[in-house]
């Protein structure tokens, strides 16, 4: 390795034209182990950051190009423009999608480069849609990156492709083409080491689902940025990354915090609404908090009062609290015991809203809904959160103002009706609980539609009217403690998921979908 010429093609993008510290640290490390860095940015970069990069990273050339075709397009550009030095022995393709290295990379390079039978390698592999090396970090020997097979992979115009097409024609095709050409590829941490009994049809992305096992068991040196920021698969233990980093002591966790701050800042926006709104938001899951915050930015306005209720994990996370206070400066923040799950949190929030004298026309009832570990979890989340998309919010206000009979607005897909008129029961385990409350609160209901998922807009007057008679804490004390489920038997919490709509209908309003 010491005598070989190592070149790295690093792809970067930042809408704010910055280079975050985590990138500089990564490249500094690569440079330190002998790589010449070719820094290709798919965005413009401010001069101050270019200066910082060249000061900190020896042997670094910076190129800027248009933002088209993601990393594969950038690598294609580098190949076509002969940016790779001719005397390069090993070529590393990597990008800004990873935080690290959490451990020194030298042992990995020494281990893999000492295997002459391996022509190209990466850190992890994936079997989804065929075996391939994951492209965030791939290293090629000279005979590979100078081969026709390699060059052919980079011939398509990635700039005209969607993200999914780039994955198929770039990432997947790269490994497939090289293997077909007779080259041997390998992963430093093969998937079968992580999940020995896996079946190909069920193989997952180990950098997401097994992220902590990779680090703790295999000294995997990175954590995926997408995992911490967007967390598309709703992995729920990602907040422990900071304790892991502290445990091994090689990486500066402040780099990740800076990146999170940058991610939130780049998505932040303030709007203006024609009506006053209150947002009663229960936040439970630390794994998806930053992504969820970016979704809530569509609601920020001078007319909005946020009330957040936090879970234990989030309450004791000082960085999350710092971000909430920074990006939602006027928000009321609560921490209540876990009673009534998200509904208990929302009722507590309404209690505070009433006591604080804050007025609003409409209230958004929302929480960081997810169905852990289901293939449909992300789609469900996105559908439910449709009602806080910018264009949909405008529609919501219009519907409320044009039709004063509308009491609740939710996503169309989540309007349900479980009432069986023939048998006079609700076809859910909480039927008895629902009837108990209908009788207790003397509700006159003929329309049994309800907003499933407990994410909806409601006229604040409906809640005020009800809770003025039945104080929020008197309602809340009947909720079950902890993460009560209704799989086997009914619960008051799940009854209340239906009750919001029944209360609304009892007051002469209706529930509609959007």
């Amino acid at each position, binding site marked *: 390795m010491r005598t070989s010429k190592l070149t790295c093609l690093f792809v970067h993008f930042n809408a704010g034209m910055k280079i975050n510290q985590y990138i500089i640290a990564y490249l500094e490390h690569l440079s330190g182990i002998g790589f010449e860095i070719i820094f290709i940015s798919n965005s413009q970069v401010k001069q101050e950051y270019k200066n910082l990069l060249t000061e900190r990273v020896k042997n670094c050339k910076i190129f800027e190009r248009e933002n088209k075709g993601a990393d594969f397009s950038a690598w294609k550009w580098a190949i076509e423009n002969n940016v790779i030095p001719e005397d390069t022995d090993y070529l590393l393709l990597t990008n800004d999608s990873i935080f690290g290295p959490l451990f020194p990379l030298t042992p990995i390079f020494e281990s893999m480069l000492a295997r002459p039978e391996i022509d190209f390698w990466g850190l992890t592999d994936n079997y989804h849609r065929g075996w391939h090396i994951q492209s965030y970090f791939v290293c090629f020997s000279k005979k590979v990156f100078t081969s026709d097979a390699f060059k052919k992979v980079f011939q398509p115009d990635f700039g005209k492709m969607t993200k999914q097409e780039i994955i198929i024609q770039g990432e997947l095709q790269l490994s497939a083409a090289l293997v077909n050409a007779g080259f041997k590829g390998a992963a430093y941490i093969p998937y079968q080491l992580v999940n020995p009994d896996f079946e190909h049809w069920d193989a997952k992305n180990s950098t997401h689902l097994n992220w902590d096992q990779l680090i703790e068991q295999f000294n995997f040196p990175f954590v995926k940025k997408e995992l911490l920021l967007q967390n598309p698969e709703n992995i729920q233990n990602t907040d422990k990354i900071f304790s892991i980093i502290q445990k091994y002591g090689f990486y500066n966790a402040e780099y990740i915090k800076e990146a999170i701050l940058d991610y939130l800042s780049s998505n932040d926006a303030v709007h203006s609404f024609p009506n006053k709104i209150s947002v009663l938001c229960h936040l439970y899951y630390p794994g998806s908090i930053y992504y969820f915050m970016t979704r809530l930015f569509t609601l920020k306005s001078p007319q909005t009062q946020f009330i957040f209720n936090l879970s234990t994990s989030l309450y004791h996370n000082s960085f999350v609290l710092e971000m909430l206070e920074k990006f939602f400066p006027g928000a009321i923040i609560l*921490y209540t015991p876990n009673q009534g799950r998200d509904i208990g949190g929302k009722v507590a929030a309404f209690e505070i809203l009433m006591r604080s004298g804050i007025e609003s026309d409409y209230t958004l009832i929302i929480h960081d809904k997810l169905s*852990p570990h*289901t293939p449909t979890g992300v789609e469900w989340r996105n559908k439910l959160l449709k009602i806080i998309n910018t264009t949909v919010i405008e529609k919501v206000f219009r519907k409320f103002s044009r039709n004063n009979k509308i009491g609740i607005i939710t996503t169309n897909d989540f309007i349900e009706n479980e009432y069986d008129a023939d048998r006079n029961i609700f076809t859910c385990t909480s039927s008895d609980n629902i009837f108990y409350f209908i009788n207790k609160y003397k509700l006159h209901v003929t329309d049994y539609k309800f907003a499933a998922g407990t994410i909806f807009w409601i006229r604040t007057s409906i809640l005020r009217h009800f809770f003025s008679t039945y104080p929020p*804490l008197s309602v809340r004390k009947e909720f079950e403690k902890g993460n009560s489920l209704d799989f086997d038997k009914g619960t008051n919490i799940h009854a209340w998921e239906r009750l919001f709509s029944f209360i609304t209908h009892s007051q002469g309003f209706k529930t509609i979908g959007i």
Partner: protein
Amino acid sequence: MLLSSFFIVDIDKFNALPDIELPENAFLSYRITSANRSHIDHLIQKIVLQKKNAFCIMIDLHGDAFKTGDEFEQIMTALVSLSFHFKYVKPGQDNPLIIFDSSVEDIDKYVAIARDRFIEQGYANIETVIINSSTNNNDVTKEKNLYFRLQQNSSGLFTSYNDLINKITSTSYAVFYFLEYPEILPDVLDTISKVEIQFKKESPQAYHLLEENFVLTKKEQEAQNKAGILEEQLESVKNYQNPSDSRYKKQITELLYFYKYEYEILPLWYKRFGHIIKVLRGQRTFKSLFRDNVKKYKN
């Protein structure tokens, strides 16, 4: 601050508090008395948006403050609401702290009422400190809760606090500063700071022992908090056991994939056409196409 310090302010004097950030181990305590309890909602309105300082409530039971248990119950709902604020002091296992200032013999009755109201809202318990500020309490050899009553300025505090801190024999003290005039809080903090700096110079060993105790107490609390988080996460994992971990993993996953890729992705108009076909085939009622509160499926 070396010792846990509570700065007591009557709830109707909230507006007189200066806008400053308290140091670590220092807390505001809003005192509710029979005279000022009508101001509770006003306090809540003011406090909900403040994020700087940790606070708790002190209930003053002197002088028949709450003549009946019912009167006391009435303020409990407000106190529970206040405890929901993320800055409310929750020292041990996230149980809220309530300070009772009382000379009454049946103080346990009031504590029990308070405990019940908080438990029914999901708390495991409440942390209580019972003091009796009607006594002249600054004898460190006898008491663990020490009081200073401060009027218009903090004169005399330097000497008093200096005497006190030099007599400390253990670490389990709490100091209560009753501020008749909340405006003097910055001066009070400044005085305390000066005393502790002097104490550090004159008795460095004792100072560092107290400081270490504070650090360790904080770590203990962090460990308790972490245990609480892990318990919450474990409960979540238990409840949401990944169905694909079961022995029906393959079948469940195949079903879910079928639902997602063969049904869910179909356009709505196609699904609705299917509903009409079901009606024509006698598998679904005609009325259920237009109304929800009717029988949907024919047996």
